[in-house]
């Protein structure tokens, strides 16, 4: 290309090789053996061909939840998030020219603070699991203690991430049991586990079983520790927020708020806390300030907590986070508004309850937990988990989460069981398809 030639002339070099003379011959390679490049159209065909091997939730009803959820996403959310100026931006290092992203993230933080009832939220963590890891570390930073007590009925992946996050601190993870009948926190046992080594107690509402647990309202009373609560943010359109029952840190999965499932990534870690702890909080924070003319302006703030300034002493190593997912969520919440969020929570509870009743009316399918559920529930099933799963697939419907098969048998007391998720997107005919197929093996 002419331009390359001109630049080379300017540099006084004859060949591009000369730009690499500082690389020792011994380490040079012959090239990358990964095939030739293709034109866009050929790739378009190829991608369609490969991806057509996937079955999306538009091609098959799917009743999976367990951490990642299907919800209706307004077309406008995609439209906003695909604005070039948002998605091709870097972190807003120059705030004067990045007000759009900064204000949007400020709105996201405000939304999360309102939903969770906490004072402040950061501009995102990677996902729910790493948010838990960060929360545990933050608890340690707050009170210097070394034990975190978590529910036994936690998703194993989350526990595994937590383990890795606290490993470096040498923190100990202790599990508290749940009540077998209700699926709720066994408060007595939890109480007994708490002592002066307790850095934090972690509770979820709704929990991994989809159970809405009023015990979370009373955990705070059990002692002096950092109380971490994990929530489904959509449930907060209706349910009391952690900030109102003494949580120090609220975390959750923000994918639920307007982000597609994307095979589990990107997700969006929600992280909110009390103002008194803000300087211990990991992650980016956007603040409101003024410009030279006194006009309102937004800027990244409290950066002295962060790696690029504090380096080894930073609250976390997080740098790139999930800003665009937060944009999706801000837009999503804005479209729904208070009335929409409330209604959405109600629809989810209603639909799930309806389906739960339908399933329980089939012989052999038994309600595992005698409680209020949000949009998920565990059903004890009459045959082997994997067998039922395959049967459903053969009927063109994807069942729920296999409670023991996929969790290294974490829940032996349940026997064969499935965790079903139902949201506003499941149509009557999806539900019929599921129930009919279940009935075949009752």
């Amino acid at each position, binding site marked *: 290309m002419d331009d390359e030639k001109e630049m080379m002339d300017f540099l006084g070099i004859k060949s591009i090789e000369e730009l690499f003379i500082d690389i020792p011959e011994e380490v040079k390679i012959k090239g990358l053996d990964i095939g030739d490049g293709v034109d866009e159209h050929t790739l378009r065909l190829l991608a369609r061909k490969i991806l057509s091997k996937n*079955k999306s939730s538009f091609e098959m009803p799917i009743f999976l939840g367990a951490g990642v959820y299907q919800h209706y996403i307004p077309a406008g959310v995609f439209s906003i998030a695909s604005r070039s100026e948002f998605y091709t931006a870097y972190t807003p290092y120059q705030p004067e020219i990045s007000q759009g992203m900064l204000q949007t993230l400020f709105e996201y933080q405000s939304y999360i603070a309102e939903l969770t009832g906490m004072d402040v939220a950061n501009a995102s963590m*990677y996902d729910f699991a*790493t948010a838990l890891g960060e929360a545990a570390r933050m608890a340690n930073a707050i009170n210097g203690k070394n034990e975190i007590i978590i529910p036994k009925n936690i998703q194993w992946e989350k526990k595994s991430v937590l383990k890795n996050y606290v490993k470096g601190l040498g923190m100990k993870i202790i599990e508290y049991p749940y009540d077998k009948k209700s699926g709720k926190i066994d408060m007595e046992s939890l109480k007994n586990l708490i002592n002066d080594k307790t850095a934090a107690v972690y509770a979820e509402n709704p929990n991994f079983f989809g159970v809405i647990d009023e015990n979370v309202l009373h955990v705070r009373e059990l002692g002096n520790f950092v109380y971490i609560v994990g929530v489904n943010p959509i449930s907060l359109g209706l349910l009391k*927020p952690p900030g109102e029952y003494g949580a120090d840190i609220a975390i959750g999965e923000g994918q639920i708020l307007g982000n597609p499932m994307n095979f589990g990534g990107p997700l969006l870690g929600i992280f909110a806390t009390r103002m008194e702890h803000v300087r211990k909080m990991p992650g980016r924070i956007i603040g409101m300030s003024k410009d030279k003319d006194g006009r309102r302006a937004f800027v990244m703030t409290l950066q002295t907590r962060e790696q690029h300034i504090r380096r080894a002493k930073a609250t976390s190593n997080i740098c790139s986070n999930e800003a665009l997912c937060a944009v999706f969520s801000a837009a999503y919440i804005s479209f729904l508004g208070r009335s929409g969020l409330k209604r959405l929570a109600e629809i989810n509870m209603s639909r799930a309850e309806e389906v739960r009743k339908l399933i329980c009316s089939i012989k052999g399918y038994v309600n595992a937990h005698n409680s209020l559920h949000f949009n998920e529930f565990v059903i004890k099933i009459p045959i082997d988990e994997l067998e039922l799963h395959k049967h459903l697939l053969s009927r063109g419907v994807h069942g729920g989460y296999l409670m023991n098969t996929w969790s290294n048998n974490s829940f032996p007391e349940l026997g064969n069981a499935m965790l079903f998720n139902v949201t506003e997107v499941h149509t009557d005919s999806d539900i019929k398809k599921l129930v009919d197929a279940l009935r075949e093996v009752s």
Partner: protein
Amino acid sequence: MFHQAVWDEKLIIEMKGSRTIKIPNEDKILNLNIPAELLRDKLNINDNEEYAVLRHYVRLSQMNYGVDLNTYPLGSCTMKFNPKLSEEIVSMDQVRNIHPYQDQSTVQGALQIMYELQEYLKVIGGMDAVTLQPVAGADGEFTGLLLVRAYHEYRKDNKRTEIIVPDSAHGTNPASSTMAGYTTIEIPSDKNGLVDLDALKEALSDRTAAFMITNPNTLGIFDDNILEIARLVHEKGALLYYDGANLNGIMGITTPGKMGFDIVHFNLHKTFATPHGGGGPGAGPVGVKKHLEQFLPVPVVRYDGKSYYLDYEIKNTIGKVAGFYGNFAVLVRAWAYIKMQGGNGLRHVTERAVLNTNYIRKRLKGHYDLPYKELRKHEVVFSGSNLKKYGVRTLDVAKRMLDYGVHAPTIYFPLIVEEALMIEPTETESKDSLDRLADVMIRIAQEAKEDPEKLKNAPFNTAVKRIDEVEAARNPVLTWKMIK
């Protein structure tokens, strides 16, 4: 003549309207009988018309700068063209609307793409195995260091508590060390900005778990002592970690593997052209040599000749570092980019990136100080200290650049360069736009002399004027409920 769009945009909470978006099955509500103590009573979020919301964010977007608008020469960030086809692909139902727990027979396409990407990254990194799970560069570092720890623990080599990093390292390197439970030992760079071999020797000991560097380093200089460094580190029983954020300077020319590294993380959102999204999501896969493979996070994608599957049976796995399999939609984009480029294409990416950097380097030389040697790879770091005599700082240069509709370089990093201006043009800038960038920076150096006040008051042509960052930190207003 540039002026950024300015809309006097309210906060969404200050708007007023009614919800017009309908929710599916909105009218099918049972009586839920939720105990009152569990119900919330207020929620300070307002309703608005769909259209009002849409416009709000479209207007906000116009007050944001993205690489689709113009040059974005942020050093270390590799702000290159984000191919539009990748966006088209990830908007397909078969990417967006699949659940991570779906039966593997129903996600063969997804698994194939992940598998192929693993294979490509192995070749590009010169590694033996790859995990796609880490969701950002820093997460890759953390994962890499967990692998370091697992490796030493497995070998019962338990006294290794230190990670060595050069003082030119990115902040995530020491921060990740801390997260993984290590003490960071920072060693000074030598007079060439490279690893000071004596300092390294001195720092290395049987307490050393790993040495983390990037090569080319954050100055954009390739350290030709790399094989010697590897020898020294390995001799001491430590591992050599490669911060892959700078891979754009060497693809197809050399590999971290070939240079003797044991571990590398890739920044797909830098080298492999996935969008930065205003600060993420990214993806930070990690490659390792054979001896570390048994510690990788689960699952890894494998192919049995007929189908692709998630393999959870990794002998001494560290477990998980993120909720699922990594940032899948980002992985798909990187896969698409690599497919489009192919082996030769990636090599040409590096060649052009390096050509562009050196072109800028030579054009700006004389106008800004250029510490250290001339030849650079993917980026070049200037110093604005020559402007100090006019009372102008690098920050002022950066702000003034915005007035010309060009984003500023990374400033004040790496820390070893005073008043640093770190420029990474990437291969996707045309000569035209490089010239424009150079012209603007040269003009500003001139302005610094002639009208320093202008620089100190810049920017003028952006949505807002210079922002008081000190006040923001002193009296933090972090949500709308904190507004007085």
